Each structure stands twice: as C-alpha cells, then as structure tokens.
C-alpha cells in the first residue's frame, strides 16, 4: 500500500468514527461481539434519484419518421425514509435480516421542446413507498475499521409498494440491492440485559422494478441506523 493510500485509509477511518461519535455518545467497545443472536435496529434511509428515462411524444410524419410533439424526461426524485429491521445471527459471520421501510418522494416529469412552443415545465406528483425485504449480511470479522467497527457486505431482495398521490393507484414491484458498510459497536450491556448497542452505516446499489415504470432502474442508497443486539 502506498503512503498516500495509507493516509487516505486512516483519514477515512477517522471520518467514520467521528460520524459515530456525533450520532451516539457513550463508551465504545471493541468490535468483537459476544453471544448475542438477535438484532433490532431502526434508522433513516436516503435513496438517490432514480432516472426513469426520456420519452418523446411522437407522431408519424408522411415519410414514416417521427415528428416530436414534445419531450418528457421522468425521474423519481430522491427519497428520505425510515426503516426498521430484525436480524438473526445464523453463524459467527452470517446474519439474516428482515427490513421494513417507508418514505416518500416526487415523481418529476420534465416537459420540454414543444413543437408549438408550450413553455417547458416540470410536472410533479407525490409518491409514498413501502418496502419489505430480506437480506443476508456477512460481517467481515477478520477486518476492522478502527477498534470498534466491523465491515460487512450485504445483498437482498424484496417487495415494494408505491402509493400515488391521493392514494388512487398502487404500484407493486420488486427491489434488489447489494452493498456494504460498517457496524460500529458503541456500548456493551448498557442496562444489564442487552448485549450490544451500535450504529450501522451502509451504502448499496438499489435496483427497483414496477414503481412508476416496468423497467429496472438503479439508484444509490445510504442508511444510518442504531441497533441493539441481544
């Protein structure tokens, strides 16, 4: 590893640990876990904008080509939501999780290039999304982020239900994700019964199908959550 890469790695570790210190106060503990089998967590999730594509409103000209009446470019805007999850450890490194989430975002359709000079605008609609998903999480216990963090990789799939504005139409679809993050163990046995308290930071590539569009669309997603293991 080059010197500059090592400096970057150290800076990144400090950043992660610094973020954890802002989110939770209290003593931190070693990343090594005990015999806790279950995990309950809750937090926030941010999903980046999901481009749905550009479609021209076309008519047919006498030569058989397209005459563009206007252009529509659709985007499912970024979503900020909440999530809750329940996990169970099935081996020293493997966890299985079930997660439910709720969030809302705007469907934005940018309308432009009108053949009769209609002013360009962006039409919008509010969409609420609910998800239920399952995931496999593998903690990379041989690696550590600082003294208290354990990196992990995760992949999962689930069901997504989207309610259009005024709840007059429901879209049902599927989602898949893959990514990773770090579990930061912050406090052991805080009230004498619970095993561990920590926070999770994660990033994933999210793929959805069936929300507004039948196509598969990708967007980045990031989460931060607190969890308790017992």
């Amino acid at each position, binding site marked *: 590893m080059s010197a500059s890469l090592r400096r970057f790695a150290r800076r990144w570790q400090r950043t992660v640990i610094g973020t954890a210190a802002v989110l939770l106060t209290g003593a931190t503990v070693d990343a090594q876990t005990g015999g806790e089998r279950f995990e309950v967590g809750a937090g926030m999730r941010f999903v980046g904008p999901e481009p749905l594509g550009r479609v021209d409103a*076309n008519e*047919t000209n*006498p030569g058989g080509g397209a*005459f563009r*009446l206007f252009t529509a470019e659709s985007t499912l805007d970024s979503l900020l939501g909440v999530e809750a999850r329940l996990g169970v450890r099935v081996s020293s490194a493997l966890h299985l999780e079930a997660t439910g989430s709720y969030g809302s975002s705007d*469907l934005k359709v940018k309308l432009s290039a009108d053949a009769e000079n209609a002013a360009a605008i962006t*039409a919008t*609609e509010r969409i609420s999304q609910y998800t239920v998903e399952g995931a496999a999480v593998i903690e990379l216990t041989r690696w550590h982020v600082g003294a208290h963090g354990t990196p992990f990789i995760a992949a999962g799939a689930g069901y997504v239900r989207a309610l259009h504005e005024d709840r*007059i*139409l429901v879209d049902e679809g599927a989602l898949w994700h893959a990514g990773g993050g770090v579990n930061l163990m912050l406090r052991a046995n805080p009230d004498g019964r619970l095993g561990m308290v920590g926070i999770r930071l994660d990033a994933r590539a999210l793929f959805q199908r069936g929300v507004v569009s039948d196509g598969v669309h990708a967007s980045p997603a990031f989460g931060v959550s607190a969890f308790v293991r017992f």
Partner: protein
Amino acid sequence: MRVAWAALFLTMSLLMARPVSAYLKFGSSVNGQVVTVKWSGFPVRYFVNDRGGPGVGANALADAVGRAFGTWEAVPSAAIRYQFGGFTAAMPGDDDGRTTIGFLAAPELERVLASTSLLIDDVTGELLEADIFFNSAFPWSTSAGGESGRFDVETIALHEIGHLNGLGHSAIGETEVSGSGRSVIAAEAAMFPLAFGPGNVLHRSLRPDDIAGVSDLYPVAGFEDASGSISGRVTKNGTGLFGAHVVAFNPATGALIGNFALTPDGDFSIAGLTPGPHVLRIEPLDDADVDSFFEVTAPLDVDFRVSFHDKVVVAPRGGDSGSIVVRVQPK
C-alpha cells in the same frame, strides 16, 4: 320511431383546417339527453357494392375493406365484431337498413375522399345502418404496398370504419398552411381527418387514441376495471373554457390519447387510459374547422397558450382521477 340522421363526415380532405388531438364519440340528443351512438348487437353485418370503382374491382374492394374491418376487430380490448354479408347492387346512402360500402361519384366534393352516413334510432341512440362511400372522383388503389398517385382504399376504409363504429374525428396530428388550405405534417391516429396523400399506406394500423376510443365504446369484459380515466375542467381566468383540447400523454408507454372540453364549463374526460401517471397538454382549436370535430354549442375560446398541466395526473385502475382543474393563460 326511426329518423334518418345523415352525418356527412368530411373525412380525409387534404385541404381541411388544422386538426387537434382527441378521440371523440358520436352523441345523439334523445329527449334532451345526449346518448352515445353505437351498435347494440354484433356482428355488424356489412355489404359491398358489386360495381367496384375506378381501378378497383368489387372483389378487391371487399378484400381491402375486409382487412380494415379486421384491423378494428383485432383490438384486444374491444368487443365489436363484423361480418361480410356479401355483394349488393344497393348503393351506399340508400336508407335500406343495410350497411353498404361502395364507390360513388361526387366530383362536387372536391376535398372529400370518402364519407360515412349513419342511421340512428333516435330513441335509443342505437346505430341501425352505416354506409360508406369512396369518392370515385379520386384515383384509388388496393395494392399491397400502395400505389403512387392513388389513394389507398384500406387506409381510408380504416378511418371510415371508425366512424361506422361511432367514433368522431381525432386529431393527434399537425398541419401547416399550404396554398389555400392545409397539409399534414404529422398524424398519430387513424381517425385524424386529413390523409397523408396518395400512395401512402402508413395509416393502415390503429394508434393508441383509436384503440382507446373503440375500447371505450365496445369494451371487452374487464376492460373498464383494467383501464382508467382522467377528467376535470379547463379554465381561463377562473371560468370554464369550451373547446380546448386536452391530451393525456403516458410517459411510460409514449401513448397520446385525448379529448375536448365539451361543455361551457370546460369539462373534459379521457377514458380508456392505461393506469398510471400521465401528463396533460392543452391546446386551442385556433385554426381548425371546429364543425368537423363537434357541434359548437358555446362560444369557442381560442385565445390561450398551448401549455402543460403542472401536476402529473394519475389514471387509477378501474376509476377516475377525480376532477382536476387545468388552468391556461391568455395569449
């Protein structure tokens, strides 16, 4: 009581006024109520005049017309069916209770390629007879790939059969001033009132606006539950606007389907939509021959700008968007 209601639809004229976007169902006034004009029983039986026309024999005419009927029948969401009853010596336009298709010489109708006349029961709105004539003053062809300098029978028949079904003119298309009239620069509906020109066969197929129209008139079981509609009002300065075009565009499918604001309050409704988000485009009938689309019952306001509605509007599955208000600005 049966009353002949001759509806001469000036279809496929090359010189008509600029059209707009919509599918439109015919209505007939019965005891002060407007009822939808449609066939009540299937199959709709039709006959073909046994004389043929210029350059087109009776068999070739029957074949071309049969293909056009088949195109309408192939719409999976529409239940209408047709049956060829055979050749007849009767002429289109005879009020004989038989739907007859053939050629007539009408050189005085110098812009009219073909026309459909309807016989309607004025109590029920039921269609009793629909005759189609092709104007033999024009050159015609039934060639598979079209024929230079000749109008395509199948293309024009597809449009006229739309009228036979009970559909009015759609106008998803654009024209430009050409000499003393207008010419088509684009169209996206078989029910567009202007033809592309001789030799062109691009409109032998139906477009989403046509399909929505015939499916709305003759829905198969389950279609109404599987499709949605958008309705509302077009207003300018807070008052209803009569005659505006409202076109629903589905960004997921690219389909353009529309209708007009047909009341003095500016009310409109667009049915037969694929459930999902749509954007609405509103445009004035500023240089159209309005009578070719609908009966003008109130002053037509064309003094507003082409515009988009600022909200995405959802057509719910099996239901209606609920009344939305679309505001337009004066020019």
